């Protein structure tokens, strides 16, 4: 069952003003702008046209942008059927960033638009809406990135034939600290595909720490 061959066919990392796609540096923002400013300039830089972006909290913006670049040139829900494209993400601070912003508005008039972002899996919802993914999705809150667990969980979904493709990884944002390391897993190898295993997940995650592995 778990013999299903799976591959990482693309990956994207965003942290400290840098954006990497498949290990290649796409954007290096040295202006020292804050999280909100950086995410906005990245949105503009890549000419993304999705006005809803402005409404999102920073965690969603980060997840949205990283998956936007991850899936560039792909129409994943058409290539597979939408209900077989899954999303499994994790982070350490859940939606704390949005929780705090919402708390700020409570002093005056609580903002419904901010409250809707006070759950971590809203980022999965935003990605699903954008890319029409209707497959299984889960959001795990762990102290630190657990590549072994994430590999097991996603591989299990493939093994049970629940999904043919999966957007997975780490999307974390709290104040001025942010890091996304997302990868696309498919049961069909593409060009330059990496076997989907813990070592490769680690390598991708390390790119988001500013370390580039060959």
């Amino acid at each position: 069952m778990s013999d299903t061959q799976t591959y990482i066919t693309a990956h994207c990392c965003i942290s400290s003003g840098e954006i990497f796609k498949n290990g290649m540096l796409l954007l290096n923002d040295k202006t020292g702008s804050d999280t909100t400013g950086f995410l906005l300039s990245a949105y503009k830089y890549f000419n993304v046209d999705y006005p809803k972006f402005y409404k999102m909290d920073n965690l969603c913006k980060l997840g949205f942008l990283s998956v936007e670049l991850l899936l560039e040139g792909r129409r994943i829900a058409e290539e597979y059927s939408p209900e077989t494209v899954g999303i499994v993400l994790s982070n350490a601070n859940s939606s704390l960033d949005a929780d705090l912003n919402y708390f700020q508005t409570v002093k005056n008039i609580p903002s419904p638009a901010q409250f809707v972002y006070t759950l971590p899996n809203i980022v999965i919802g935003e990605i699903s809406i954008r890319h029409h993914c209707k497959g299984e999705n889960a959001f795990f809150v762990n102290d630190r990135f657990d590549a072994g667990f994430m590999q097991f969980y996603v591989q299990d979904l493939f093994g049970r034939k629940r999904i043919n493709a999966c957007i997975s990884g780490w999307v974390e944002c709290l104040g001025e600290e942010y890091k996304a390391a997302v990868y696309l897993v498919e049961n069909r190898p593409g060009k330059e595909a990496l076997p989907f295993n813990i070592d490769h997940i680690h390598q991708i995650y390390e790119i988001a720490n500013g370390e580039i592995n060959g």
Partner: protein
Amino acid sequence: MADLKQQIIAQLNLKDLKPEDIGDDQPLFVEGLGLDSIDALELIVLLQQEYKIKLANAEEGQDVFRSVRTMAQYIREHQPKTV
């Protein structure tokens, strides 16, 4: 109404839009500006914050928020008179 349009843009984070892009009678929801249920709630907040008008429920908003014109009219009719 231009002021109101500016406020709507700011409240709803419609950053790519300018006030002149919104027609006075253009439907705000679905087929028009494409606003959704959360935007409707934010418009209720806007009325409360800027005009001290309190809407009792979201259903009432359906008529009020049909277009910028209906919204402006509602504000004129309901704004507490300043002494």
